[in-house]
């Protein structure tokens, strides 16, 4: 990281003072990582007992908090929190695709993933979507397309918006799970519940549900030819199908197969939580509907009595 301001300075793009400021800013925002060597950062991922920095075991995913009905104005919405990673997702009712000449026989999904300006440790440029946001949007759409029954709403599009309030790794996995929950919450026809999980691999170590630091280190390639990379996999539980598989970094085949098995298990662990949330909302809906039906019956009965009174009074008048 410290190379960037220096490069700017050398090319004469900024003054010496500016470069110093930039560097200082980066050091402040990035923490002390930028001055350390790869090995130092690597050993910084573990505590004395060999656990991860946040006290988790290597195979332990973060506890997840999820809920639906988060945004009152949307058709379906959800909020997912995995320790520091916080994601909001909302889904709107299908609408006709504007500015389109051809008729499309299958419905389309429009996905947009955005980071909050304060979501990362560096200040981000708001409004203009950067490369990472665009890549995540496409990845999300690809993962959701096999899950939603697109043929049921021809020539229509469903808008899915994901907002990452805070990013501490595994944000694509969180975004996919959140979008799946929001779609189900909004009663969009789907083949199955979709859940996603992510893993970071450095050498022979596998970090399940990685934090940002672990993810960053797995992607910054060291000199050696060891395994490194991040895999995000989304899975449809009931159909036992993989909806999307995304691997960045270089890994050997055995490692990928092993990681896939682990990810499958992790994805399955999330499913009961999502099912529980959905069932709870349906239950609440049924109770609500019963109440409304009872109230309607009472009103109808009252109206009938009134009608009798009126009709009898009309007869009296006509007499």
């Amino acid at each position, binding site marked *: 990281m410290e190379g960037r301001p220096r490069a700017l300075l050398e090319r004469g793009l900024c003054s010496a*003072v500016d470069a*110093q*400021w930039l560097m*200082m*800013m980066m*050091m*402040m925002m990035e923490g002390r990582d930028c001055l350390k060597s790869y090995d130092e950062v690597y050993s910084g991922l573990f505590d004395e007992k060999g656990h991860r920095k946040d006290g988790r075991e290597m195979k332990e995913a973060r506890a997840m908090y999820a809920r639906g009905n*988060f*945004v*009152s*104005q*949307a058709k379906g*919405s959800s909020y997912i929190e995995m320790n*520091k990673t*916080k994601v*909001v*997702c*909302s889904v*709107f*009712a299908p609408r006709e695709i504007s500015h389109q000449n051809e008729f499309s026989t299958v419905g389309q999904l429009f996905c*947009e993933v*955005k980071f*909050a*300006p*304060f*979501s*990362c*440790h560096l*200040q981000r440029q*708001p*409004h203009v979507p950067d490369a990472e946001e665009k890549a995540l949007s496409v990845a999300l759409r690809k993962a959701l397309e096999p899950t939603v029954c697109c043929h049921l709403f021809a020539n229509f599009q469903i*808008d899915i*918006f*994901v*907002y990452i*309030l*805070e*990013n*501490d790794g595994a944000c694509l996995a969180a975004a996919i799970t959140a979008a799946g929950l929001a779609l189900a919450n909004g009663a969009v026809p789907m083949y199955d519940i979709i859940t996603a999980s992510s893993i970071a691999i450095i050498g022979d170590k596998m970090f399940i549900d990685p934090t940002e630091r672990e993810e960053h280190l797995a992607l910054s390639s060291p000199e050696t030819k060891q395994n490194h990379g991040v895999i995000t996999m989304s899975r449809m539980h009931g159909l036992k199908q993989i909806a999307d598989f995304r691997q960045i970094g270089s890994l050997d085949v055995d490692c990928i197969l092993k990681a896939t098995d682990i990810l499958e298990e992790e994805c399955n662990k999330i499913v009961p939580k999502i099912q529980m949330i959905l069932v709870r909302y349906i239950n609440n809906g049924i109770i609500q509907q019963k109440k409304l039906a009872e109230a*309607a019956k009472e009103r109808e009965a009252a109206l009938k009595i009134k009608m009798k009174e009126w009709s009898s009074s009309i007869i009296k008048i006509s007499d």
Partner: protein
Amino acid sequence: MAEIFKHIYPSKYFNDYISRNVRPDGRKFDEHRDVKVNINAITSADASAAVKCGNSTVVCGIKLELAKPKAEEPDTGFLISNVELLPLCSSKFRPGPPSDHAQVINNIVSDIVMNSKCIDLKDLCLVHDKLAWVVYCDLVCLDYDGSIVDACIVAIMTSLKTLLLPSVSFDAETEEVKVDTSARLPLKIHGLPVATSFGIYEHIPRNIVLADPSAYEEEMCGGVGANLIVCWNKGLFCGIQKFGGSNLSTEDEKRTLVLAKEISKLVEGVIETCIKNDKVK
């Protein structure tokens, strides 16, 4: 049934409620929604607050940066607020550059914060003509259900109140800057402006003033957003703005001023308690 009626004949649906002296969500005309505040939920920001006014949700995150002060004002720092109305918070907003409505709301919010003089920009200057803090306040709306300015002001003020500035040492000769994030000092805040929104609904025999309108009520009252925003700062009147909609009688104006004062006291209490509880933790 009522839901369908609401969609096919919204004005009649709303009018039926108003003629029976009640609002569609069961509130009285002068009743406002509950305010919930949570602070420091986002650890990647230097200070943050999440605010819920009824369904309306706003999250404010503050990021600090250093910069050189403006040449015209070498003793002042910068406080930059930015309101984002995300497409996910309501179907009214589309993705893309910020809409006019978002910019208008941003202007109202920054005007209120600046005019109340609750922050002295001179406090943000570290070294004369050399170094000053830039406080970026990003306000994001996660759920747009009316009275968004109220929620934005609560969010920005709460996060500014909890903001801790790192100590900075500046070497005048080498112009070297050192930031010590372990030693932090709070920013001085000289007041607490609280805004209260009202919608004015055209009704016979007299127009009706609705405190803290929801998105649906705002739509029914005409105009974009709330019709009237009254701002009080610790018992001092610090601003009133009226945007389109129906006309407001003088008696109603007086009533809204008094009502806004009461509400602002309550909201102040909520913010103070929230910060106090966080300190105890």
